[in-house]
Each structure stands twice: as C-alpha cells, then as structure tokens.
C-alpha cells in the first residue's frame, strides 16, 4: 500500500496528464477513485485547482455519477445483484441477511472499515442466481444461511 504522500503524487501525475483536455474532470475522478478508494474534499480541491476548474464543478460531477464515492470504501466491497434473475431467485433476502449481519444499510461501510455493502445491477452471471461479488470473487446459488460463513472468510 502506498502511503498518502505517494497517493497524492500519483494523483498529481494524473492531473498533469489530463490538464487542458476537454472533459478532464471525469478521468481524474476515476483515477482518484482507484488511488484513494473515494474522492474526499482535499482530493477534489486538488483536481479543481490542477485542472483550473471550480470545486463546485468537480463536486457536481462526483455526485452525478454513482461510481464516485464521497466516503471511504471498506476493505472488501460486497455487491449483491438485484438484477431481474437474481431478484426473482431471492437476492433481496441475501442483501437483508448481510445488512443484519454487518449492521449496515446498502451504500454504507462498517465502522471497522472492513466491508462496504452495495446493491448492484446485473452482474452477468444469471445462471448462478442469486449472485454476489466480494472484491473480485463471485458467489452463486446463495441462500441466507450461507452468508455468515462467507463473511467470516473475509474477517480472517
């Protein structure tokens, strides 16, 4: 994990690369998401000043697209599919069970910073419905009673 100074230096590079381009705010915010995991105020100020635009412009873009997060994400990001196939196969019960286990609502992060819970659109694995992803790992044919065991694997 690079320390914070390295992260800001990396962001500075990204800003330099996109400076002067039309629509430079989007790629800078995307890269910042990759570097920091979220786009807090000081990061957005750096992008605004670096690109010669305003903070309100950057903040406006960051609140328009759901891919940008203003709050830090957990170490493990859980995405439960609420697409049509998963939904009819009971994925709402899966997400409710996770909410109950982690004591957070979809969109939130646990206090210990370990998990973020998101409801997602179709993940493209309808044959395995209901499906969720934790990080890059896919879990299919879920039932609520499988949830605690899976979460424990990531707590270790």
């Amino acid at each position, binding site marked *: 994990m690079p320390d914070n100074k390295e992260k800001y230096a990396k962001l500075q590079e990204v800003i330099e690369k996109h400076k002067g381009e039309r629509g430079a705010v989007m790629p800078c915010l995307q890269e910042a998401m990759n570097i920091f995991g979220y786009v807090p*105020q000081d990061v*957005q*100020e750096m992008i605004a000043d670096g690109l010669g*635009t*305003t*903070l*309100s*412009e*950057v*903040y*406006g873009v960051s*609140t*328009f*697209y759901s891919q940008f997060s203003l709050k830090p994400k957990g170490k493990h990001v859980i995405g439960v599919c609420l697409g049509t196939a998963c939904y009819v196969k009971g994925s709402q019960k899966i997400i409710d069970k996770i909410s109950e286990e982690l004591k957070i609502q979809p969109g939130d992060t646990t206090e210990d910073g370990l998990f973020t819970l998101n409801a997602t659109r179709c993940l493209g694995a309808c044959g395995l419905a209901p499906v969720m992803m934790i990080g890059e790992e896919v879990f299919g044919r879920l039932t609520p009673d499988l949830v605690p065991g899976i979460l424990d694997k990531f707590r270790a």
Partner: protein
Amino acid sequence: MENLVKLTIDGVSVEVPAGTTVLEAAKKAGINIPTLCYLKDINQIGACRMCIVDAGARAFGAACVLPVSNGMNVKTNTPKIREARRVNLELLLSNHDKKCLDCARNQKCELQQMCQDLGVDDVDKYKGKMNEYDIDDLSPSIVRNNNKCILCRRCVAACNKTQAVGVIGPMGRGFKTKIASAWEQPLNDVACINCGQCIAACPTGALYEKDSTKAVWNLLSDETKHVVVQPAPAVRAALGEEFGIPMGTSVTGKLAAALRRLGFEKVFDTDWAADLTIMEEGTEFIGRLKNGGTLPLITSCSPGWIKFCETYYPDFIPNLSSCKSPHEMEGAMIKSYWAEKEGIDPKDIRVVSVMPCTAKKFEARRPELSHNGMQDVDEVITTRELAKMIKEAGIDFANLPDEDFDPMLGESTGAGVIFGATGGVMEAALRTVYEVVTGKTLDKVDFEAVRGTEGIKEATIKVGDLDVNVAVAHGTANAAKLLDSIRSGEKTYHFIEVMGCPGGCVTGGGQPIVSAQKRMECDPKALRAAALYNEDAGKPQRKSHENASVMALYKDYLGEPNSHLAHELLHTHYAARPKYKK
C-alpha cells in the same frame, strides 16, 4: 457584407444574419417566444424547453439554441406547442412551493408571469413528491431558497461565466438535483464574493438579498438615535424603474425627497464621498507615480471586486488603493467631521447606506472599516429594498417633487455622479489627476475611451509629458482576464479601475431586476449609465477638486489629501482570504 438568412416564422418573413437563433429572429418578427432558462449572452442552453418551436423536424426544437437556416418555416403557436409548453410549465410547478404572496419576487417573477401568459389554470395538476430544502440565509448578502428553484442554471452561469467565481453548480442527479455549493456548504462558507449577480439572473424568488429593511425601520423609530442616510450614485439611475418610470431616467431629486419622507434626519449623498475618494485616490496615484510605488494602482470602490482579489488574486493586494469605498468614507466622515460640527456623540449616530450592491452588506461588517469600535456604516439596504420601504410607507414616488441633498456631505460634482457606471471612477480620477499634475485646465472633461460596455477598455492619456496607461474592467471574469495579462507580462498599466459587476454599479446585484425578455429588448448597462452621464453633463462642477464642501472638509478638518488624519479615517488594508474553508 453580412451573410443574411431568410426564413418564415408564423407566416411572417424575416431576414437575419446567419448564426442568429430562432428565438432572436422571432423577436425581430414581433413574436415573443416564452423562455425561462435563457438569459441573453449569459445562459443559452436549451434546458427548460419552454421555447420549443416546430421547425419541421421530427421533434420540437428549443428556439434559444436553434440556429436559423435559409427557407426555414417555423411555427411557434400551434395547439401541440401550446399544450407541450403548458405541460412543461405544470411539471415545473409540481416541484415548486408556489408560495407567491410572501415571495421576494411576487409580481416580478418570470415563472409567475409565464403561468399567467400560458394560461395555467391548475397549479396542482401534477401532485406528487416534492423536495423540501432548508433556506440558506447565513450569508450577510444573499439568501438561497431552493424550494423556489426551477434548475434553470442562470445563477450558475452568472457565477461561473460572468464572474469567474463558480461557487455554485448543479449537484446530484435526477429528482435530487439542486443548485448548491460543493459539499452543500452554505454560501457564507465558500469563496462567494457577495456580488449578487446570481440574484440578478434568477427568474424566480430562489435568490434574494438578506433583508435589512426591518433593521432600518427599527432605527427610524428610535428617537435616541440620529439616523442619517446616503444613497450611492447608481441608485438614482435605476430606482425609478420600481415605480414604472422608464429605464434610463435619473430620479435624483425624488430620491432625496423620498428618503426625507421616510424620516431620516439627514439625507446625505455618497456622490459627495465619491468626490472625496477621487481626492484621496488621485493623490495616492500621483504619490505612487512620483515615488516609485506599486503600480498599477487598482481602484477599491467595489467590495465584490475586493473580495475577489483577496481570494483569487492575492498577489495583486499591494496594487489595491488603500482608499475605503465611498460610502465607507461618507460613514467615517459622518461619525467624525459631521458629529463634531453638530456636537453629536458619534455613538448616537446610525448611518444607513442605500446601495445598488449586495456585497456592500458584507463590506459594512468588515472589522477594519470602523473607528473607535464603531462601524463606519451601520446598515445597508439595496435599491430594491429602498423601493419596498417607499411602497410600504405609502409614498407616491412618481409624483414627488425634486429636492436637494443636505449640505456639508451632500453636494457633488459630475465626477462623483459617474462613479456608478463602468469607467466612471477612472474618468473622474483622470479629470482631477490631469489638472493637479499639469496645473492646466482640461479643455474637454469627457474621456470617451473609458466609457461604454466593452468588457475591458484601455487608453493612453497624456498627462503633461507622461503617457499614463489605463485600463477599465467590469465583471470579475473580465478583471481576471486583465490581471492574467499583467501577470504574464503581456500588458503594463499605471492605473486600473475594476468594478465587480458587469456594467458597474448601475447593474449591480442590488438593483431592480430586469427580466430576460426585457434584456432582449434593451441593454440596462448602457441605458442606466446614460442617465448618470447626462446628469454629469448638466452639473455646474464636473471635477472632484471643484467640490466646495469637500474642499471645506480639508480646510477645516483633514488638512490635506492623504494627511495623517485622512489616512486614519479614510484608508484601509486588505488580507488574502482562503479559497476553501478547512
């Protein structure tokens, strides 16, 4: 030869230059197409869809962004278009609070007017979920009530494009979209310059000035206080509009009469202090010129501009004139010179300023603009607020006799009058600087090169054997452009005038609001400025150093311009401000 395009609008044949929009062409054909988000030269984005027309395409086009083409046949008034516009409007109303009776813009609201014009007969046609927003009234200048916002983005364009400030923008998405500052900070916590151009741009009552009329009414009924008033130069160029008097009519005499009838003990005039400002600033300029001081000297009358400089161009702070703005000078003189002459304890005096400006409300609170623990100015009301008070008092403004301002701090020359228009401070300064430096009388006092509505104006004026390079910018986006050209070394000047609002104070953020439709028909900047230049031309004295009562002030009290006492009472200092609150 301009490339002309011929088209037909509602059967009327018109010929307009290529690149003209259908909206503008229709105006020429005598057809007013309804608009809400459109604001000439500022916001042309085709967002509100009120201006839709049938130009033969598959879908209706937005006339404000639809360029004309040869042979085009446009219909603006068909049953389908009328219906579509009305539905658009009804949908806007479905998320609008519709509390018109106590709205700051009641009877001056473009949305309200449009409901009447387009025959909306059921404001609750589409009942559903509505957004409910807290009112942001923490700024001393500007209040935002998003419950009345129709998301037209005119304020956003004014803040970003005209002023290069950009502290507001659309946040969020879909139904949750709102105009706000980043991280939904109140306007008072972001680097807003308080200019009020957002208010001037707003078609509804979503933006208005922070009210000071109640405070002023309270002062006026306080018998233990000596309550005196001073209106700024630009107020007289526009106040009449609030009472049905045509734009461009100067109402100086009625203004003085109305203020007296409201119950102010003395009706002084900021024009007097404008003359005083020229004496101080002119002397400062000559001093900097002779003694190798920091140049260019930049004027400091406009508090929006000052806050802009402190926040966005702090490296130019040494260039700012140390002169307080005219109404602050007037306030300082009322509480010292006048108090002494009248034998009144300054603690019992209250100074009310009537200003074309919302930033003046912020300026009046600056701690450095005070003396012996008393602010130089106690309350600031805008031109609009004064109009409200006059109406509330039942004064028949249009039929008032013309009266004079009170002597001692109420007489002015033509130079003081033109302070309200872009270029006016520069012209007034040049009239005095020229005569003081050369010892000769000017043949012609009009400096045409610094007049007019061009965003940045430049001139070289021969003062004796010296070529003085001057520049004038209005609207802070133009000021930014000018400062950038100085930073880069591309330009060098001796003297610069900046006014924060486009057009100068005559079209300041506190002036009567001119609707988007009216702005298509006339240029308020030029019309209101003309009112001031006409008044200047008719004055017996037109140079600040010919103002007898200002000269008496120096003789009896201050000594000479830039004297020790003048510095103590009439000058100030500035400090860099952070762009972001930490």
